[in-house]
Each structure stands twice: as C-alpha cells, then as structure tokens.
C-alpha cells in the first residue's frame, strides 16, 4: 500500500537527499508517495511540521532542538532519525570587507584564527574612527549559520553581541543586501555563496569546514508523536533518503543529481552552481579563483547521514553560550535525544556505517568538545553571553 506523505523543504542544496529520493523513485520503491512542498521560510517549515500539515521536513538541526525544548516558540518534540547534510555553509564577505581583512591578516588566509584576529583589528579600527559596526547576515536565530559566525569571530576576540550586528535575512535577500550595503558579510548555505561570487558582489572567506570539521547542518525532522505512531513509515523514509544520499555521493551521478536539483520546482538555479557545491570545487572570488575541499558538503559519505547525538549536544551548548537557553542537565538530555542514531540503525540494519569518530566536532578553537560537561567546556571561552 502506498503511503501519501507531505514533506516540506527550503530550496537549498542540502535538501538533495529528499529531492533525489522522490525524483529517482527511491521513496516510491519504499511504498511512499511523497509530495515535496517548497517553503519560503524556516518559520513556515517549523509551524507546518508542528501542526501536522507536514509529515516530515528538511529542517535546520538547531530548530529541531529548539522546538523540542520549546525555545522561542511552541514546544513540540521533534526527532531527527536522518542527517541530511554535514557542513555546506560558507562565510561570504563584501569586497571592501575582504580587502580590509586581508590588509590586517597575519598568516594563512584560509586559517580561521588568522581571519578572526584580522576581523578584530578591522572592528577596532572602525570603532576608533567612529564608523558604524559591521553587520552580518544569517538565516535564523536557531541556525548553524548564527552559531558558526559567532564561533569564528569570537575566537578572534570579536563579541558578536557587542562589536558587530548579526541580523536574520532570508537567503534570497543576502545578495541584494550585500550589494546595497545593508550587510558586510553573511553565513549561508549553498547555493547562495556561489551566487554572490558569480554576481561579483562577494568573496567566500571561509568554508564552514574550516571552522568545524564536522557540523550537523540539516536533518530530516519528524514529530516524535507521529514517529511513534508510524514506525514503518519512518523506517521507509530513512531507507529512501539513505539510497538517495548514496546515489548523490557517487561521483558518476553528480551531473544527473545537479540537473534534478536545479529544476525550477526544486532549487531553481543553474545546475553548474549545484555541481560545484556537490564536488566541493567552489569559485571563491569574482576573479575566478577556485578552492577545492573534500569537506565542503557531506551528504551521506563518511557516515554523514547517521545522526550523532554529540552534534546535538554541541548545538545545545551554542544555545547556552549565546544566551538562548539556560544550561540544565534535563535540557541537555532532551536536546541530545533529538538525534536518533538508533532509528537510523534499525531502519538500515547492517548498511548504516557507524560514525568513525562520534562526537568529533573538530572546532578550530577552544578545547575539544565534551558533551558531558558543557559548563566546563564553555568556561574555556572568554566571549559568551553574560546575564545582564
């Protein structure tokens, strides 16, 4: 019997496993009749998932956690039995800010500590001459983009709440906003960094994989209550997404996958831009400079699709660090339990490769992450939200 499902997504490259699962028939082969619903905001995806208009969704990992904790919004327990992508974001800055950072940099321009320290000097110089603080765009208060920008700049001594402005902007508006000077840089997922570079309005300063070796980005999210009532459907969804991720990661399929994703009802941009993202070969400057990384976006390879509870704990720690959540053992348990490798393993049997190094967030600054002692871990960082 075919099971009709409505799944919401935002047109971003890391929705690939869901889109390909439907387009290539992996979902149908599992007995699922999936209607993908393209959405314009994370708020919409979250609300429609919460009230049951969507059975599942492509969701920012921190939104799944925030929803389960009732942060900023209604408390609806959400589960993530499948990770749709690791990494995939980048920090893009305007040409003037790029020049300013490069003017101050000491060391390797791809070393995030070197750029963060340079940014701190740029910020200090602006303050001395009474210039407006720099403004950075990110996609949502509970977003990896928000935490990654903050983590990076704070490591160089820039307080993201005091020294610069961080504003939420829908990804399609990032490019315009950098053109008209509303923002000086942004952190966003693919394909938006490449679009800014292609239009000649920005330079990619960092891949997020420079900042964190493994960063859980989007998850396949379902309501806990729905999941408990429909265990076979959840299994089928995991298997379909797993096959799709395998398909996408096969280098011989990348061109076809890019074409599927590029279609107007999916992401609706040039297939070539999507191919760059999947291949991790990005044009980082309007002058044509290419930078290659095998860590730019991971969809399934290196165990990327298996949810790692330590990643959920890291995201929760960022919520605590920046004052979005109080540090509480109970909340940490709830946050960690959002990521469900057990459901993933149950659905895939022997096929799910266990994560080689679970919990390896691999941040460029600070001590190794300890999910069991968030307070001690955060104490190692000078810049963090302090109760006023």
């Amino acid at each position, binding site marked *: 019997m075919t099971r009709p499902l409505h799944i919401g997504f935002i047109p971003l490259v890391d929705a690939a496993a869901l889109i390909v699962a439907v387009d290539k028939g992996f979902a149908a082969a599992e007995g699922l009749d999936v209607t993908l619903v393209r959405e314009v905001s*994370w*708020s*919409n995806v979250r*609300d429609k998932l919460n009230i049951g208009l969507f059975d599942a969704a492509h969701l920012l990992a921190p939104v799944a956690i925030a929803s389960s904790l009732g942060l900023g919004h209604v408390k609806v327990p959400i589960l993530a039995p499948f990770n749709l992508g690791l990494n995939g974001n980048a920090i893009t800055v305007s040409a003037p800010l790029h020049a300013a950072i490069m003017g101050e940099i000491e060391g390797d321009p791809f070393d995030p500590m070197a750029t963060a320290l340079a940014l701190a000097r740029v910020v200090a110089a602006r303050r001395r001459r009474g210039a407006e603080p720099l403004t950075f765009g990110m*996609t*949502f208060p509970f977003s990896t983009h928000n935490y990654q920008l903050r983590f990076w700049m704070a490591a160089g001594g820039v307080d993201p709440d005091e020294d610069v402005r961080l504003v*939420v902007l829908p990804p399609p508006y990032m490019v315009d906003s950098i053109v008209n000077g509303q923002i000086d840089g942004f952190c966003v997922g693919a394909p938006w960094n490449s679009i800014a570079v292609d239009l000649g309005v920005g330079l990619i300063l960092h891949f997020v994989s420079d900042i964190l070796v493994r960063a859980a980005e989007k998850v396949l999210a379902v309501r806990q209550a729905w999941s408990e009532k429909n265990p076979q459907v959840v299994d089928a969804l995991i298997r379909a997404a797993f096959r799709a991720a395998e398909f996408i990661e096969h280098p011989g399929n990348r061109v076809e996958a890019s074409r599927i994703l590029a279609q107007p009802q999916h992401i609706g941009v040039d297939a070539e831009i999507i191919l760059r993202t999947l291949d991790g070969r990005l044009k980082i400057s309007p002058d044509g400079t290419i930078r290659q990384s095998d860590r730019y976006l991971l969809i399934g390879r290196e165990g990327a699709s298996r949810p790692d509870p330590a990643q959920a704990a890291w995201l929760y720690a960022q919520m605590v660090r920046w004052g979005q959540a109080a540090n509480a053992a109970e909340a940490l348990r709830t946050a960690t339990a959002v990521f469900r490798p057990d459901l993933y393993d149950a659905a895939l049997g022997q096929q799910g490769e266990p994560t080689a190094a679970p919990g390896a967030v691999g941040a460029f600054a600070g001590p190794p992450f300890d999910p069991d002692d968030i307070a001690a871990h955060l104490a190692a960082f000078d810049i963090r939200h302090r109760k006023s």
Partner: protein
Amino acid sequence: MGAESSPKIVIVDESPIRAAILQEGLREAGYADVVHISEMQSLLSRIYALDPDVIVIDLENPSRDVLEQMFQVSRAVRRPIAMFVDQSDSASIQASVDAGVSAYIVDGLKKERLKSILDLCISRFNAFSKLQDELDRAKSALEDRKVIDRAKGILMKLKGLTEDEAYVLLRSTAMREKKKIGEIAQSILTASELLK
C-alpha cells in the same frame, strides 16, 4: 497610545491589494491605527520604530524568519511573542495557516482582542484568495475565448463552414474527446502553425 485603547497594527505584505483589503477590514472593525509595510529592506528597524502591538504577515513572505529575531534576547525595547504560542486554540492556528497569514503579538495585549484581529485577518485573506481565483478564472476564460475565435476562423477558412458550424464542430469534438473546447481550439492552432 496603550494597547487597550486602539492597538497599533502593522501589516507586512508585499501584495498592495491584499494589504489594502486587510487594512480596510481592520478600519471597519474599529482598528484605526494600521500601518502597511511593503518594503522588506530593514524590516526589523522599521518595526522597532513603529513599535506595534500586533504584527500581521503573510506566510508567503520569506521575511517571516526576520521577525523570529524579535523573540531573541536583543536590544529591542519590547518583546513580542508569537501567536502560535497559544496552544489551547489549535483550530485558529490551523485556520490561519490555511488562510496563509500569521500574527505576532506583543506581551500585554489581551488574548481575546488578538483573537478578533486574527479572525478578521483570516477572513480577509480568504476573501482575497477567492478574489484572486476568480480573477485567474476570468483571465483564462478570456484567453480561451481568443483561442476559440482564432480556431473557428481557421475551420471556417479551411472547411468552408459558417461561424456557428465551426463552433458546433469544436464543441462536438471536445465532447467526444472529453476535453475542453479551449484545448481542442489550441490543438487546431498548433496544428495549423505546424502545417504552415
């Protein structure tokens, strides 16, 4: 002006017609203090400057995510809370999502008052969708008429039919093939293009 006398309502909507319909509905219901924002640039600073009690935004607007920032620890003077926080009223949440509208309120506004504002927004949004549908249907009916007239002309010329006979031929073919007359007419136009 305090929230209890006449709450200040901001409508965030890129559709000027829908915003006008909503604005009119709110004014009729006695809400005099209504401001429409159609420009999404610097949305948050505009909202902070207006300092509204209620914000209404359509769900097709990507800037909904921008509003989420208002619930964060920030320098904002007032902290709005989301409509959806009222979990006791799932029917009204459903109705508002179906209608495509979402409302945010600032702490302190009575729930009953927001309910009446939201109900009004829902009905006006639904009225607008109905209007839009009718307009789309009228447009496509007009399009069909043009296509049918041209197809009739081709049939009259090729087969030496009168206008009435050409129409009857189109209609009977449509009935036999279980298609719309407009579709049959379109295929005649396409065929005649190909055979030119």
